[in-house]
């Protein structure tokens, strides 16, 4: 596809229909069958939904929330909203009705698309979100006012409308590890710049297994939008339970993951290779379905050792870096040239990165317009010259970004020394005895609170002794001001956000040992 012709999301979906037509864009399970949904059908359904919206809202600006796991009907609802020049508000399917109500009201949502499994929260929303005029079920649902299937059957196709690339396309809430969710305003131009910012090597023969939650911009841009540009077929992983089964079923050539998935799959492959006395490469081929060319990892820190391990298995794993506020890619890696130096990829085209007081700041056409109706937070993140303050600490070497921690998590000790807790936590990434770790300051001491892996050491006292030894060794590699001085052991997992990141603000549960 000629990327210079893509200016808006509406252009992208139209051009993909013109270029790839009846080729499968989505493959998804329906009962025991696998059904296909083509590029042409997506554009056709989107135009019919746009017609429905126009007829119900009569020119009123529409903010349409969408909640549910990835599905062809989710995409139809999204692009139906977009091609009519309206705004989407993707919501986290793991939130409770009260939180959804709050987000819906704060984003001025007046149209609500929902997957059938969330039907139970509709009466609550109807009562508490009076501005929402219509509730549309993505699939057949008892008591639904109307479904996407009914709309695409009854309505004709709306004529394409002129869309300014600088107009708002989506309000995306950031989950964040602290504070209330902020609605990131992304324009058509922001998202399209990110779709076009890398000369990713791809072709329409690629088959992608989509395992990440669709409301995250990482998944949205890199799975769903890039696949429209390249004509890639996306197979929907219907549950985190079924990744192994779906890898065998769909035999993808690529996959985007978060480090937790990469680490667990790696551990399973190595365990199976040992147990069955088979070469790990052969086990990996079987586990990944035999055709996997590369994996992309983002969203959190991936230990270089895991990256090296995958290279040994013959599967390059490319690490990228970004944030919702940047649509999301800031840097990305090429699978033909994977670096294991601990960096998070090369800065993408069109994006300028500088380091100010240790913080990574970014200027790019992908940078958001601001936070919706939250000028104070916008002023904190975007300075007067349009630089996005990422809040991440790091440095750049040969155009590659290295991350050392989060600015807001910096521990400032009484002697004035700054300690990045993530930098210390990452030192434990390949220590098998450590399942989870959180580093913070307590009584002026750098403290590590650890959930040990009880498989490896069921006895807590023994685990404490081993961990003390490990900490002693790690401390030898650190400047004395940064050494870990206190260890707390806990027996339960840390509280996490819905994107599985450990919440940094939580009550201490571990005992000092």
């Amino acid at each position, binding site marked *: 596809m000629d990327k210079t012709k893509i200016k808006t999301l509406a252009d992208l979906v139209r051009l993909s229909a013109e270029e790839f037509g009846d080729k499968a864009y989505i493959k998804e399970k329906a009962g025991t069958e696998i059904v296909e949904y083509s590029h042409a059908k997506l554009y056709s359904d989107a135009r019919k939904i746009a017609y429905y919206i126009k007829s119900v809202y009569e020119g009123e600006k529409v903010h349409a929330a969408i909640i549910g796991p990835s599905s062809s009907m989710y995409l139809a609802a999204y692009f139906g909203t977009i091609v009519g020049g309206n705004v989407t508000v993707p919501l986290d399917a793991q939130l409770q009705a009260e939180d959804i109500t709050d987000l819906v009201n704060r984003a001025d949502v007046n149209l609500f698309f929902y997957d059938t499994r969330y039907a139970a929260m509709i009466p609550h929303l109807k009562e508490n979100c009076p501005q929402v005029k219509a509730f549309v079920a993505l699939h057949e649902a008892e008591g639904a006012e109307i479904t996407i299937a009914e709309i695409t059957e009854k309505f004709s196709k709306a004529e394409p409308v002129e869309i300014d690339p600088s107009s708002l396309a989506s309000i995306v809430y950031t989950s964040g590890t602290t504070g209330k969710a902020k609605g990131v305003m992304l324009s058509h131009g922001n998202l399209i710049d990110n779709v076009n910012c890398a000369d990713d090597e791809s072709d329409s023969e690629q088959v992608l297994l989509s395992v990440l939650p669709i409301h995250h911009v990482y998944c949205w841009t890199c799975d769903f939008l890039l696949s429209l540009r390249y004509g890639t077929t996306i197979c929907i992983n219907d549950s985190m*339970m*079924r990744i*192994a089964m779906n890898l065998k079923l769909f035999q993808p050539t690529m996959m985007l993951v978060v480090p937790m*998935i990469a680490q667990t799959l790696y551990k399973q492959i190595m365990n199976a290779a040992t147990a069955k006395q088979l070469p790990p490469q052969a086990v990996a081929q079987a586990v990944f379905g035999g055709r996997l060319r590369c994996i992309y990892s983002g969203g959190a820190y991936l230990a270089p050792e895991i990256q090296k391990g995958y290279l040994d298995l013959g599967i390059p794993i490319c690490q990228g870096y970004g944030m919702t506020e940047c649509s999301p890619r800031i840097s990305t890696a090429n699978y033909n040239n994977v670096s294991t130096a601990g960096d998070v990829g090369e800065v993408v085209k069109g994006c300028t990165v500088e380091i100010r007081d240790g913080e990574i700041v970014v200027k790019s056409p992908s940078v958001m317009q601001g936070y919706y109706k939250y000028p104070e937070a916008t002023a904190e993140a975007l300075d007067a010259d349009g630089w996005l303050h990422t809040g991440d600490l790091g440095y750049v070497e040969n155009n590659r970004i290295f991350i050392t921690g989060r600015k807001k998590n910096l521990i400032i000790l009484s002697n004035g020394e700054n300690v990045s807790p993530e930098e210390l936590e990452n030192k434990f990434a390949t220590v098998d005895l450590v399942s989870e770790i959180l580093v913070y300051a307590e009584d002026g001491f750098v403290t590590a609170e650890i959930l040990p892996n009880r498989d490896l050491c069921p006895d807590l006292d023994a685990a404490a002794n081993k961990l003390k030894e490990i900490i002693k060794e790690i401390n030898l590699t650190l400047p004395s001001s940064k050494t870990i001085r206190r260890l707390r052991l806990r027996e339960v*997992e840390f509280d996490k956000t819905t994107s599985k990141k450990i919440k940094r603000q939580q009550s201490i549960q571990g005992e000092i040992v």
Partner: protein
Amino acid sequence: MFEQIKELILNYVDVDADTITEESRFIEDLGFTSYDFMSMLGEVEETFGVQVEEEAVLTLSTIGDAIKYFESLK
């Protein structure tokens, strides 16, 4: 079913098979991570030909809970 579940469990965690009982808790006693647990449920689906509901997963704490739930699906 207990023996079959036990065999699946041993693919995920490195514990002494003799210590596994119906009262064993997946996360606290056996050391499952939440993602390990989800992966194992995927294998349960394949092994027993059942469909596990994601919402029900949260209520499964011990092996006994899981067996009772899997049997209700048959």
